[in-house]
């Protein structure tokens, strides 16, 4: 919001500063520029205009401009405040550049008090607003709008930011999967219509492979015999879904990015736990667990 020294704000009640559409009455850029017209006759007015021009070079219009525009009555001989916006080239002090009577402010008229601060945030309403449309159509559209808003939040297109890691690492964090795996999208767009670079490979599969293919991984804390059997069996499964070489390149790329991913750390912890993720049963759905590749007896 420009400070109150702005000549515009003096007569303005509202405080919109972004409009470039002003045709403000006291906006003198059209009058300020001297028209070097060859057809301009040397007349008395021209001479006086020349005289004024030299005056103006001395004055700094903006410094004096409109600190107080007009207090009480108007006196055209008073220190001019409404110098031109063009930097005061045009007119000297003490003179207004236009005839005030032409816009209807007669001599000696009381003008509204100057504005010394930005307009209030909630200006008082003079007239009550018109009532909103009611009736069947209005209510239906209203209900529809609210329903749409709620529905869109549930769709997979609503991307929620990843839950920030809590200050203390909780034990249950390892077992609660929050959000889609590894930034994959919940829905399946038609990849033929999208640029190739937008495709995110689901890294969970990759992860299983990276643990096998690249032995640089830090060794697991507990090398349970059952865990290795488990790993071999999942490896069998994954080998059926071998993808092209591109994936390997992607893996290496992704490995570099992996440090940045918070979720990666959680997943790695998942890998290192003693218990197989799918076997973990926190008691909510009894008997609904998958039972694949389990050598242990189910009690």
């Amino acid at each position, binding site marked *: 919001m420009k400070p109150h020294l702005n000549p515009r704000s003096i*007569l303005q009640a509202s405080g919109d500063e972004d409009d470039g559409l002003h045709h403000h009455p006291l906006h003198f850029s059209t009058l300020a520029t001297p028209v070097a017209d060859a057809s301009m006759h040397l007349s008395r007015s021209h001479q006086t205009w020349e005289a004024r021009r030299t005056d103006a070079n001395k004055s700094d219009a903006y410094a004096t401009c409109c600190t107080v525009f007009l207090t009480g009555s108007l006196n055209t001989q008073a220190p001019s405040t409404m110098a031109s916006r063009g930097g005061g080239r045009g007119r000297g002090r003490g003179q207004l550049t236009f005839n005030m009577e032409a816009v209807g402010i007669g001599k000696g008229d009381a003008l509204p008090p100057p504005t010394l601060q930005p307009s209030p945030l909630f200006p008082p309403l003079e007239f009550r607003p018109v009532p909103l449309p009611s009736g069947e159509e209005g209510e239906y559209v209203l209900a529809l709008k609210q329903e749409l808003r709620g529905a869109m939040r549930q769709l997979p297109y609503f991307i929620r930011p990843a839950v920030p890691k809590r200050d203390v690492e909780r034990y249950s964090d390892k077992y609660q999967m929050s959000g889609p795996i590894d930034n994959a999208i919940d829905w399946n767009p038609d990849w033929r219509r*999208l*640029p190739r670079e937008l495709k995110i490979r689901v890294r969970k599969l990759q992860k299983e492979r990276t643990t096998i293919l690249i032995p640089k991984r830090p060794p697991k804390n507990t090398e349970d015999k059952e865990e290795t059997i488990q790993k071999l069996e999942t490896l069998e499964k994954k080998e059926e879904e071998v993808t092209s070489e591109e994936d390997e390149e992607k893996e290496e790329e992704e490995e570099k990015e992996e440090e940045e991913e918070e979720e990666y750390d959680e997943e790695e912890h998942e890998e290192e736990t003693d218990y197989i993720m799918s076997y973990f049963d926190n008691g909510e759905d009894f008997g609904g667990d998958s039972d694949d590749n389990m050598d242990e007896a189910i009690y």
Partner: protein
Amino acid sequence: MTQAEIKLCSLLLQEHFGEIVEKIGVHLIRTGSQPLRVIAHDTGTSLDQVKKALCVLIQHNLVIYQVHKRGVVEYEAQCSRVLRMLRYPRYIYTAKTLYSDTGELIVEELLLNGKMTMSAVVKKVADRLTETMEDGKTMDYAEVSNTFVRLADTHFVQRCPWVPATENSDPGPPPPAPILVISEKDMYLVPKLSLIGKGKRRRSSDEDAAGEPKAKRPKYSTDNKEPVPDDGIYWQANLDRFHQHFRDQAIVSAVANRMDQPEPASRVNSELQFTFQTQTSSEVVRTMLRMSEITTPSTDPFTQPLSSNEIFRSLPVGYNISKQVLDQYLTLLADDPLEFVGKSGDSGGGMYVINLHKALGSLATATLESVVQERFGSRCARIFRLVLQKKHLEQKQVEDFAMIPAKEAKDMLYKMLSGNFISLQEIPKTPDHAPSRTFYLYTVNILSAARMLLHRCYKSIANLIERRQFETKENKRLLEKSQRVEAIIASMQATGAEEVQLQEIEEMITAPERQQLETLKRNVNKLDASEIQVDETIFLLESYIESTMKRQ
């Protein structure tokens, strides 16, 4: 894009898609066309998040991509399309009035999902309709397909640009992004599908769908893997056609307000239903507009000339006015100072056109007048209308013509001047523009006033949305509590609880809290209704500005 528009886009994206998409979307709107890595770098989000967000935005037609040289793909956001999200309820309601519930759900699915194949839409809509029907009845796919075909025929839905089928095998690597093409004639071509089936209900594990044994259920999921016959043909809602419809509606109601008698209270308010004889002039205009729906592109300033005989033949069935009466009405419409209808020739009993540009201009002017009236009072409105009519007036003349005392007239003029509804025009008498020898005339520049008002509308809606979010956030705790209580009551009712217990649970929400909830609900409804109202104004102003810019 002005700041106000960007702010509004940001609020809309955040409300509908979440913060990540909002950040990416606003960045693209601000900076124009950018490649993927630059977006990730500038916004500081991870590459994966950016990819996700871009997928969502492209799916909803809010962002388009282009392949530049050296294989760089650049993404560009479409700000005006984001602003259309405000109007989704209105589109859906229009579809409901024209094609009843089936059409409504089809358009809703298309709008919520951006683009879909026809088979997917049909299946989903059938399922949804079956949910609402009584037990034992299901919705047939064929019926939904029919409605879909009708929507396509009247251009309310259109095909998205598709990947051209390449006959030769590409020797080099496939391009980084497919180039999508679209041809005018194929845009509304519905693929020949024979969709057979019925809608399915979502059932809990206790009840079964009608006659389906449990063993068949896993089969249903494998159906998705079969190749769909219309794979790759995606449909989207054609927003321009809806806009054309709104425009027609506005013109017809303007004519009705001006020329027709007030309607009897029992009249049903619906677009295509038969109207009483008192609504003749609006009915004539509506017929003319309907006849020009497909023939005239929506951006033309005039419709195609229609002869009086054609109009007579196309009047709704059962509307029995004689030819002479129709001719009289047409002459009346053509002579009206509003100039909605113009006469362009005499062949065929008189050739008439609808002057679309003028009509939009009148509507925009009427909007401006009503804004001035509600904001500044009826005397200001009188001055405004006076200046509109006379085009240029001096200070003194305004006072004389409006018959308002000088002081008040001056005050009102300055109020409107500072609100940018009225502007000053200088007419110098001498070449040196001496101020004492210059005329200062008040005038209304409709285009610039319309732009100013439009800008203000964007700001208002942004304010309304912010206030609504603030109100909801303030009472978040209370809202959550009431939702929990409702959930508890619902579950208890399902398991069959006594009245006393239900009473107890309901009393968990105290009376003052209930009142607070009521107030909140009322306020949120009011704010939502205001948004819808402002959006209607935005539509009128945008149409007018667009029509004017096309003519220049």
